[in-house]
């Protein structure tokens, strides 16, 4: 099936997407119909309590899971009508990921983990790209170390390097500092936003951490599967300027 295309400046566009799962007690709607857009280059935090549905929303936005209903467009391509293979292709081309538990391949070294997306995409300069970005995250001396030989902060830096290697248009981060101490959290946040700005990547992150959420331009608040948008200070300012 040919993916559906629309033409606007939104990096993400959702129209009434919902998620229903089957449980032993019958169907359970874990996401009420949600509609919102994320502009290219924007940074958005999805916040909410545990079990509110924020990770589910992230999995749908990133194309890791299928929507039960509604439409979802990533860089103008309709993911809701794609199969897993097409979504994988789209992810490979346009999406980067950072996870709370780092999700590095334990049997590959730091440099090899970073090379992985570039290799999957078939880039012949994967190694050079990896070395460059490893330098940017300050881990060139740890290139040949395995994940279990690195500290948590280092592992997450490797994960960030891996996320940026294929120059994604959009980056999804799931609790990127959730497993780190305060000092490391700060370093990672700094690195993440720096790289994000430099490469003009759209950032969608899920977090409990209000401080981290506050650094994003927009916040989407999830509560029991329902989305409410919290307008950030800058937006309030912008709205005030427009009104004025």
């Amino acid at each position, binding site marked *: 099936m040919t993916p559906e295309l629309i033409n606007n400046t939104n990096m993400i566009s959702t129209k009434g997407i919902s998620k229903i799962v089957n449980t032993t007690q019958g169907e359970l709607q874990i996401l009420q119909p949600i509609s919102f857009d994320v502009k290219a280059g924007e940074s958005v935090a999805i916040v909410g309590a545990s079990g509110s549905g924020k*990770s589910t929303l*992230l*999995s749908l936005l*990133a194309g*890791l*899971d299928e929507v039960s209903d509604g439409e979802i467009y990533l860089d103008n391509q309709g993911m809701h009508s794609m199969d*897993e*293979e097409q979504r*994988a*292709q*789209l*992810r*490979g*081309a346009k*999406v980067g*990921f950072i*996870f709370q*538990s780092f*999700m*590095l*391949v*334990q*049997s*590959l*070294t730091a440099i*090899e983990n970073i090379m*992985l*997306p570039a*290799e*999957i*995409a*078939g880039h012949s300069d*994967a190694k050079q790209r990896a070395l460059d970005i490893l330098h940017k995250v300050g881990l060139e001396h740890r290139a040949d170390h*395995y994940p*279990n030989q690195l500290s948590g902060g280092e592992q997450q830096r490797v994960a960030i390097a*891996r996320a940026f290697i294929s120059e994604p248009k959009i980056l999804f981060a*799931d609790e990127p500092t959730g497993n780190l101490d305060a000092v490391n959290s700060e370093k990672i946040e700094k690195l993440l936003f720096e790289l994000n700005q430099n490469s003009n990547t759209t950032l969608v992150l899920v977090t409990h951490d209000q401080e981290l959420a506050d650094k994003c331009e927009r916040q989407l608040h999830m509560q029991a599967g329902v989305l409410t948008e919290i307008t950030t200070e800058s937006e309030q300012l912008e709205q005030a300027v427009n009104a004025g």
Partner: protein
Amino acid sequence: MTNHTFSLAWRLFRHETKRGELTIILLAIILSVASVLSLSLFSERLQQALSDKSAEFIAADRVLDADKPVDLGWIEQAKQMKLNTAHQVYARSMVFANEQMDLVDLRAADSGYPLKGKVKISQQPFSPGEITETLPATGEAWIESQLFQTLSVSIGDKIEVGDAEFTVTQVLSEVPDAGFNVFGGDPKVLIPKADLAATNIEGPGSRVGYSYFFTGEKDDLDDYYTWLKPQLDREIHDWDSVEDENTRIGRSVGRAGQYFLLASLLAIVLAAVSIAVAAQRYSQRHYDPVAIMKTLGAPKAMVQKIYLLQILFITALGITIGAVLGFVIQQLVVTAIADKVDVSIDVWHWRPLLIAIFTGTVCAVLFSLYPLLKLFSVSPLRVLRRDLGANLSSRLIQFLASGGAIFLLMWAYSQNLKVSAILFSSGIALVVGLLFVTYGLIWLGRKMGQGRMGAWQLAWARIHRRAMDNSVQLISFAVTIMLLLVVLVMRNDMVQQWQDQLPEGTPNYFMVNISQAQQPELEQHFLQNGVEVKKFYPIVRGRFAAINDEKVRTAVSKEDPEKQNQGRNGLGREANLTWSNELQNGSKVIDGKWFGDNPLPEEDPSPFQVSVEQGLAERIDIKMGDTLTFNIGSEIVHTQVTSIRDVHWQSMQPNFFFVIEPRALQNFTPTYISSFNLPTQRKADVTQLMQPFANVTLIDVDARINQLRNIVDQVSMAVEFILILVLAAGSLVLIAQVQASMDERQQELAILRTLGAKGNLIRASVVFEFVIIGVVAGIMAALANELTLYMLQTQIFQMQASLHWQYWAVAPIAGAIVVGILGALGCWRLLSLNTSHLLRQMV
């Protein structure tokens, strides 16, 4: 395929090998290849040696026996087909010397004889023979010891055979193809074949046979037989090989062969089980990398290629190491036992290597199939939801793939559908039985796992919680224990039955022509010399005259006159007749009733009863109720056939074609035959023992017995080593299984540790868990063992089936001890790691 996919697969393989991630699956493949290669290479070498050794009993690899000379073109063809040939003419003929005569088994051999085995000669009758590479020269005859007695000749004397005269130059101690029937054979006389014509004993009506001996490569022999077969006339020609079931040696070699086959099959199954366990674990460990790759955009085909390549790399490495290891193991075993067992060390057989490679590949591929399919189905969503496993839920593929693989391997390897089907079906029965037991255990676990958390409760609770994993584990333990039991018990039963055939003290000398008056004197004399004389059997010589009043030479049946006549004419009409109400050892009545069960009084007017040997009855068409007529001395005795006996001709006991009711023969004056056992080292005493009884003829079968015993010892010894190899393979499988399951327990141990559980509690609970599993597996294995053995013994090995109660106790106890110890060792390894290390390994 892109270079990236290949290099990624290679890199993953390299790192994982280095980090020990692949150890278990690699070990399983190495084990399968090594055990299959070492077992089959060893058994093939041994078989070859045994077959060579056994070939000595027919003096060649193949023998063509004929009633008349064959077309010389046949022999030429054999030579062209790279076979070695030799020729011997044999006849029963009278030999004269010093106005005495005796019926002998005359053999006229050409220079190639014997192609296998050796002729032994000596200068003194009844003294140990020495190997000779020569044959009698023109005008010379070598004769067996008892002929020196019966003809009163010495070395250098002349004897007459037909129209020719020969000088006796050696005592013929042994020829390889002497046969095992003590009384079927007359004393042998060996002369050069070139001298046969001068005797004029060949000719119309003479009872002369022609043996053509062949040796060569098995393929060449088979090719030759294929060429020859259409030209053979079943009535005239008989193609023999030592593997033919009709000889004791053939049976022993055949059984040993079946046993090696069985052992190797079981080794394959053991290896397959360990690969299945390891592949499952391998797949689970790779759920995360697959989810990550998929998340990062890897298409399914790429993931599939990466992991298929990995399996290929692992298989190739496993096969290489396994082949080297297997070769080294069997070479070590062969070297270690070289002085005890003849094995053709220098022979390299390609078949075992190919089988080992095939086994390794099929096991690795088919047993990884289901785990790999599961792996491929892992959702990328697992990166966010760690609890997500594989999406594949149907186990049908798994059962079909693993069951199919095992059956395919068994069949391909054994080329014996029956053996494969028996082992496979008992395996299935065991698995089904175990599933029931497992669910019983789950139920029991629910009951016993309740209450305060002691080590036992923890063990039962864990069994309950990990029901599915435990059922797989239980099944693999039980299958392993069962297979080991089968190999062990088969070996014990088989060796026992072999040894029972030739127990210590089996008579190695027979005496004939003992008069009634000599009996007590002879017994006394022997006793004084420390030799016990066995039972005396009365004998009268009779001439078998008629069946149902038709003379034997002219008896013709309507259906197949030629065949009947041929058979009846071929029978020596002189027969040793005995009478007894007692059935001889090793004989079995297969039709009718043994007259000894209800002896009739002397004056009973009913016809005298006779029992006939089965083979003879078939050959000359004697049926129950037929009247057989014998001329004994000047009298004619009519008898009626009331039973047909199966006689164990190779039992080294006196055996008879005809056994007649005592009331028929008791008025004749018999001579007696008896036997005794004299250790080979006392051989020199024979002359002294026999000196007072000049009329008694001695038949020396010591060499025969030793030949037989030698081969039984060799086969037994070989079987022992095969057993050790299979035991080693089985133990390694158990270790691999425990190791794999320890991995799965790591998480739980880490949590218990973190929560402050004492090492002793954890250790005890793990040991108890394994002990429980070991006991149950042992009980199930004992049950399945009986079932399998019954079918194997009755259907394949043609042995008497037997129950093995002792293993009902041995199996559960051994299961508990071995599995418990392995569990404890595995547990100790984990507990020696600190908690944070354990937790970190879990991520």
